[in-house]
């Protein structure tokens, strides 16, 4: 841990985003002064995707003098103008262009796991921000399953600590994995979470409050949470962290240009086999942005899709894909939820969905009969989410309406089961074309036996918690959460897409910086780890441990004084 100083500025010196926001408006101020680069201007780096990976990377490197353009397929949000406190009205926050799903256990995409627009899917994630455990980086060595990362927990730890300050993360001292504390104290609990905790306590399941990336005190110009429960619909308060407010204000202040509504079609190569830039669609026209380095940061479906769509003579099967690794080992977490019914009114909508969490079952315990484990977290479905839950338990017609009328009596717990990486769980190109004439992604997913045993065990624990809490009835939905993998990092070109410095094995100036690089997923929500990886990658680049850097012109322009 960094030595704590009670008099330190709450907003960290290396990222002033929270101070650059306006107290009375939610959107980023001063966008009319944002840098603008011409397509023909060779920037130091073009980043595809304005999400957790792309925005964090841009913020870090802009402070070191890099001239960066981020191209984002979706719009540039102004929360005051564009977001609503309404489930159906938040449809535009999700990647809703068609993707084809199949396999034995197809994964529904869209609102649950795919963002569209500046800020990415952190705009509509719940807000949980746990670290990975040290074991997550070496599951093959320890447990004989999954894969070993080419980096360790120790490599990411200083970046976890930095990013936790930047979001900032609120929670109780964390006893699991590498024990640590958080910059903000834990939020107060709702009745729905309290009753879940009572059940857990009786069963002997240890719980902790948090960790959530939601302000709980003074933090620059970002307000305190108002507990209205619409975290998954975009936080109109600016209390929940997303890169739109945690990294872009500082990035833009330091010269980053974010070009929204710009859908990248292909990464282009020059004769020497290096990337020359990217072709993208904006306002119905195709453009080409020149860049000295290209970073793909479109997450586990769109990053593989972009590489697979970028074919050339050298790479007939897609860029960086001569070992047939692009799009493989895509993972989701088993996220079944069990709700319990109580005599009192619990009002599960009256709080952020993320409240308490247990990582007691995170690590492998061979007596359970499967490798790896799961975590337990509260969730707070709003009416449409609750209706999907009731429907999944097999109720429609009058039975559905009856359970829906009973909404205020229920509290809901969810699992995050670590499902294992498998080569056949993969993104490929479908025959279908999108509105730009580009093949859409096809995502094939099937569980393995270990996955099924993990989910079944986890659901049994949730049932036992509700039984201990004396719930009068339970309802269960089987579902998935999160996406990682698809362009995993590794130690050899034969078994991975990028090396430990996020560089594609086969192209010297092509990088991937998002959740797709993860070789395993643990039982932790991935947002914090994606940001920590981007922070580490940025430091590697800026310290010139990786050969790519700002052009001589940028360094002499005076803007890039080393931070």
């Amino acid at each position, binding site marked *: 841990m960094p030595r704590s100083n009670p008099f330190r500025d709450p907003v960290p010196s290396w990222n002033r985003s929270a101070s650059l926001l306006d107290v009375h408006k939610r959107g980023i101020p001063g966008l009319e002064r944002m840098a603008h680069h011409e397509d023909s201007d060779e920037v130091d780096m073009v980043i595809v995707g304005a999400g957790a990976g792309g925005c964090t990377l841009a913020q870090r490197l802009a402070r070191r003098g890099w001239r960066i353009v981020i191209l984002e397929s979706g719009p540039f949000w102004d929360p*005051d*103008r564009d*977001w*609503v*406190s*309404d*489930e*159906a009205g938040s*449809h535009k926050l999700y*990647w*809703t262009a*068609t*993707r*084809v*799903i*199949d396999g034995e256990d197809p994964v*529904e*995409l*869209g609102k649950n796991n*795919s963002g569209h627009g500046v800020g990415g899917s952190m705009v509509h994630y719940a807000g949980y921000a746990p670290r990975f455990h040290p074991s997550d980086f070496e599951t093959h060595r320890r447990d004989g399953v999954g894969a070993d990362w080419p980096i360790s927990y120790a490599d990411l730890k200083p970046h976890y600590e930095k990013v936790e300050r930047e979001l900032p993360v609120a929670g109780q001292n964390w006893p699991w994995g590498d024990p640590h504390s958080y910059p903000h104290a834990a939020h*107060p609990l*709702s*009745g*729905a979470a*309290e009753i879940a905790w009572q059940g857990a306590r009786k069963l002997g399941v240890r719980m902790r409050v948090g960790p959530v990336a939601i302000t709980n005190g003074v933090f620059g110009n970002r307000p305190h949470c*108002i*507990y209205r429960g*619409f975290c998954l619909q975009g936080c*109109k*308060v600016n209390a929940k962290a997303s890169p739109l407010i945690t990294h872009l204000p500082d990035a833009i202040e330091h010269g980053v240009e974010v070009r929204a509504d710009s859908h990248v079609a292909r990464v282009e190569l020059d004769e020497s086999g290096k990337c020359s830039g990217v072709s993208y669609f904006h306002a119905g026209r195709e453009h080409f942005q020149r860049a000295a380095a290209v970073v793909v940061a479109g997450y586990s479906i769109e990053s593989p899709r972009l590489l697979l769509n970028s074919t050339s003579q050298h790479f007939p099967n897609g860029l960086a894909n001569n070992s047939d690794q692009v799009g493989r080992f895509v993972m989701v977490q088993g996220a079944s939820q069990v709700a319990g*019914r*109580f*005599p*009192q*009114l619990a*009002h599960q*909508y*009256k*709080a952020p969905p993320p409240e308490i969490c247990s990582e007691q079952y995170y690590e492998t315990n061979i007596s359970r009969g499967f490798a790896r484990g799961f975590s337990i977290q509260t969730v707070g479905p709003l*009416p*449409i989410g609750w*209706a*999907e839950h009731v*429907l999944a338990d097999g109720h*429609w*017609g*009058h*039975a*559905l*309406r*009856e*359970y*829906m*009328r009973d*909404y*205020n*009596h229920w509290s809901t717990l969810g699992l995050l089961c670590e499902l294992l990486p498998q080569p056949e769980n993969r993104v490929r190109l479908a025959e279908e074309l999108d509105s730009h004439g580009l093949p859409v992604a096809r995502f094939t997913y099937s569980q393995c036996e270990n996955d099924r045993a993990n989910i079944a065990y986890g659901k049994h624990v949730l049932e036992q918690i509700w039984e201990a809490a004396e719930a*009068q*009835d339970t*309802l269960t939905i089987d579902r998935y959460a999160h996406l990682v993998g698809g362009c995993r990092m590794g130690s050899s070109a034969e078994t991975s897409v990028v090396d430990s410095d996020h560089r594609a094995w086969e192209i010297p100036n092509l990088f991937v910086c998002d959740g797709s690089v993860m070789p395993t997923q643990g039982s932790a929500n991935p947002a914090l780890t994606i940001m920590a990886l981007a922070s580490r990658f940025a430091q590697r680049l800026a310290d010139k441990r990786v050969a790519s850097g700002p052009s001589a012109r940028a360094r002499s322009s005076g803007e890039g004084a080393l931070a």
Partner: protein
Amino acid sequence: MARSFRDAEHLPKRRSGPAADPEKLPRQRNGTTPQMHGRYPDFNVMEDAPHWDRVTRELLEKRVAEPPTCRLFAEREQLTLGALFDEILAQERDPRVPVLQMVDAKLYERKFDGFRYAQLPDDDRTMRIVARQLDGLSELGPEQRHERVRAFADGELAWEEIDSKLAWKVASRLAVSAFYSHPWAFNEIGFRGPAYPRGYMRRNMGPTGVEPDEPQEAFGPDPVQDVGS
């Protein structure tokens, strides 16, 4: 005295038979609920609208005041799908949330949900195939209609064109997503809807967790038969 909803004997899984008769629920006295029954007879979420931010308020006021008209489904498809959605949501009489029209608008505007099962076409075409397969549903008597939808829900229908189990997922998801986006449904279930910029203060369980303007749950159905009935 009527029993309260503190016990759970009204819940479908606790009953061995079909769901309880909603006609015995309290009548709505303030605002509208679908079919005018619910748990919160004096709760009308739209009364909070002056406290909501402008964009949210305009969106929800429009959802109530300006129901769309069908542009995608043909007349015969409207009859069949209307009957299907009424069954899925137990909307047997007015006032109804206009689910058919809301689903039609979403699909006509091609606001799909971001995924498509490989075995199915896009959701608009899937729903038109469902309408063709269930043609005649609206002409059946109540029991036969319910039985046909039950067979659809339980995956007992074998259709040549598409996988009926996956088609049920699409149809039921579209139905509940439209219905439970409507403020009348918020009234029925006691959901306070948009809470911005005000937010919530009291969140604990029990009487001290209740805010003064919060919907009050009515007592449950009266088990005592009227004299002479």
